[in-house]
């Protein structure tokens, strides 16, 4: 039975991917991509990767769809019909595919317990981590403790990407002013980072004041989304979850708020300054734990020295590090959303 569920989901996945390829409307393609991500999350559950499924559902089906839609709002969602026949790409893809399929025949069969990948470091993680780290969720102990240095690198990448998006999208649009097309008077974009200057008009316009149902539903949902994010954050040691997932879910609460009520009101609660501060704070917290463990006589990110009892030290270290991850991921997602949505709002002012 399980096998047939798998096969069904996999075929659905391929069908979804193919329709993403062939559909011409980018809006539809984005929605289908979200569906593909969600099917992938289901497959991850059946492959025992509950933490990954969690992340994929929150990120792939949630946040990245919002980002694509934010981009489409700025660039339009029509794709031009192809002008040339894609023979060479087709050949290259088929060639790569054939080579990979050929290679899979040399791979050990799926699911065997004696595959090379299962016999290397994994047994140590599985057998020792409950004793050494004292955290039931092995994914969390590997993520935050054994491979803590690696995760620190990932958090830095997210931090850098957040900064990058802010830099790229918060620049003023000089060309538009040069062209002086539809703009009357100075470009309103210059007010992007200035909350006070975002006068009442965009706030009134962007908030969908006529849609009572979304307003009420969102107001009911948002507290629970935020509460759930906190649960995922702090229960990540015991069940599926952790800083990455919690950060994304926490940000999703704020993104939902600004989608329904308008960016202006969200910025009053969480200003761009605060987001930038939190973006850095998470990385500093993570690195700070490492530096503290250095000063206490251990290695970088060696949590054993944080407390008299090594297991308690590991607990403390993982808690702080996951908190750092959560803060940075939340801030990065909100910052990225602000950058896209702020740009769209600026453009709205141009047209009117």
């Amino acid at each position, binding site marked *: 039975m399980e096998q047939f569920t798998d096969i069904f989901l996999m075929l659905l996945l391929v069908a979804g991917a193919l329709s993403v390829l062939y559909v011409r409307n980018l809006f539809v393609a984005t929605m289908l991509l979200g569906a593909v991500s969600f099917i992938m999350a289901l497959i991850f559950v059946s492959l025992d990767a509950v933490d*990954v499924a969690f992340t*994929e559902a929150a990120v792939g089906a949630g946040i990245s769809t919002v980002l694509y839609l934010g981009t489409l709002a700025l660039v339009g969602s029509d794709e031009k019909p192809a002008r040339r026949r894609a023979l060479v790409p087709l050949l290259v893809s088929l060639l790569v595919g054939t080579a990979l399929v050929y290679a*899979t025949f040399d791979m050990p069969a799926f699911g065997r317990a004696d595959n090379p990948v299962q016999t290397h470091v994994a047994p140590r993680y599985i057998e020792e981590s409950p004793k050494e780290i004292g955290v039931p969720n092995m994914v969390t102990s590997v993520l935050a403790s054994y491979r803590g240095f690696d995760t620190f690198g990932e958090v830095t990448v997210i931090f850098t990407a957040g900064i990058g998006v802010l830099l790229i999208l918060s620049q003023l649009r000089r060309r538009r002013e040069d062209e002086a097309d539809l703009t009357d008077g100075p470009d309103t974009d210059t007010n992007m980072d200035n909350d006070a200057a975002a006068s009442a008009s965009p706030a009134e316009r962007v908030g969908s004041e006529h849609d009572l149902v979304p307003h009420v539903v969102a107001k009911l949902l948002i507290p629970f989304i935020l509460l759930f994010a906190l649960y995922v954050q702090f229960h990540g040691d015991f069940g599926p979850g952790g800083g990455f997932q919690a950060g994304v879910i926490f940000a999703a609460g704020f993104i939902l708020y600004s989608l329904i009520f308008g960016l202006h009101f969200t910025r009053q609660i969480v200003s761009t300054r605060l987001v930038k501060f939190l973006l850095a704070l998470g990385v500093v917290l993570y690195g700070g734990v490492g530096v503290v463990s250095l000063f206490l006589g251990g290695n970088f990110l060696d949590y054993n020295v944080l407390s008299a009892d090594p297991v308690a030290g590991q607990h403390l270290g993982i808690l702080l590090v996951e908190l750092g991850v959560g803060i940075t991921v939340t801030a990065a997602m909100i910052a990225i959303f602000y950058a896209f949505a702020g740009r769209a709002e600026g453009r709205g002012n141009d047209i009117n």
Partner: protein
Amino acid sequence: MIFFDHFNYWIFVILLMIGLFTVMSRTNLIKKMIGLSLFQISVFLFYISMGKIDEGTAPIVVEGAQDVVYSNPLPHVLILTAIVVGVATTALGLSLVVRIKESFGTIDEEDILAREDKA
């Protein structure tokens, strides 16, 4: 059953081909980003498939139970972080697309190249 021994890996290959083909054949930059996402998803599937053990369960300690088979937690960790890093880098790519649209007025690769040649 020999067919199921490599079934997951073949699906990975098919997805990867679709992603690669999308990136190479479509001229719309957003479509290219979507292709890249598909490509990325296929790699996630590959890693997670490798970590699965038959009759295994999620790598969260079951209290008091003996001889529980846990799937490999390591690929999960690698892919979990890769997903979040993936969305952050996708956002970076999309923001570049937005800027390209503003500078060139189009996000079609061929139109951009034509415009570049003219200039």
